[in-house]
């Protein structure tokens, strides 16, 4: 039994080390909300995207499959024809086909539904 508790203590120690690695990270700052969540202002933005493309700054896309998730959600928005992502900088480039008007709020909600955080529109 003593060995069990020693092993559990070891595991909890490892957890503590892992936990410390996550605190105070701060991360790269690109402005916007202080907490890493999509703001309501962006989610409810009714501004129609002008032209045939727009660029968003998205946080939390840590891997190629994460970008694919964003792609899946954005392509569900009627009027979106192409999505590409630059994971290193966090930019998501959206191309529109003009079949329907697309608002910034629609795009922001799509990114939010994919599990990531939109910080701003770049144009």
């Amino acid at each position, binding site marked *: 039994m003593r060995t069990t508790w020693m092993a559990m203590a070891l595991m909890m120690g490892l*957890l503590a080390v892992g936990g410390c*690695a996550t605190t105070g990270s701060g991360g*790269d700052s690109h402005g916007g909300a202080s907490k890493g969540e999509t703001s309501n202002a962006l989610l409810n933005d009714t501004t129609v995207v002008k032209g045939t493309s727009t660029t968003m700054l998205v946080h939390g896309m840590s891997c*190629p499959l994460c970008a694919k998730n964003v792609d899946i959600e954005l392509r569900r928005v009627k009027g979106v024809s192409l999505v590409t992502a630059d994971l*290193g900088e966090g930019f998501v480039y959206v191309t529109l086909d003009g079949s329907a008007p697309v608002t910034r709020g629609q795009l922001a909600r799509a990114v939010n539904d994919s*599990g990531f955080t939109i910080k701003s529109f770049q144009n």
Partner: protein
Amino acid sequence: MDEGKLRTEMRGAAAMLVVGVFALNAHAQEAMWAEAATQPPSQTLRYRPMAHYVRYGGSPSGKFTRAEELSIEHEFAFALKPDVSLSVTVPTTYRTTKGRTGGDATDEDSGIGDITALAKIRWYKDDTGPIDTVRSSIFFGAEIPSGHEQLSSKSVDPIVGVATTWIRKRWGGTFTVGYKMNTNQEEEGLEPGDAKADAFNIDNAVMYRLAPEKFTMESKGAWYLIGEVNGIFETNADHEVMLSPGLMYEGWTWAFEASIQLPILQQVDHRPERRFVVGLGLRFLF
């Protein structure tokens, strides 16, 4: 080589091939063995097969002398909302048990094992940079008996836990604490938490992106080195800590991973020791 040995070797090779084709546990930057705080996009159904090959030692009570198991778990996960998902995991299992019916005879069992139904709620998310994130989810549900005579624990076992996943530049990790309350009254089980004791899981995984050093528009995928320490502590004082090194490649629509679990601390008196566990993964995202 005699015919019996040849058949055994061929079954082993076939099992490994099946693992190679179907084993899938990688999701995004998830570790292979630890439950992660990740889920599918909202209103999206994801099918994810996962496979494990496990070699067990002998039963402590002498019920058998050795067992092998290949289990392919079919996980169906659906996200109701961005932060809430449900999953059902149905394992199809092939198990060989040596010495159960006396002598050197090997018994074979195949069928559906216990089904796991879980709800996962992400209660914390902090995306602090283009790549950096910290997420935490609670999960709860139960392991439901399939009714199979040999492959089921024959009890409804509630499960609850917390999983936290973090990514910071090239590093990432997951730490998970889970508890499985066992309502079974059997003195001995095969898997951890199958006997009447409850099981407490502590998993800690660290991942490092080997390449690319920095993602660009031209990046086609990423290689990750994974190291996990997986601990299982049961209320009957059985405990086991496994070291699990692994490697994962993740492309834009698919991922491949390989991992092996080796015991570094093992004190089990109510179930057989797990000699090693192998997992190979390949997953496609449509």
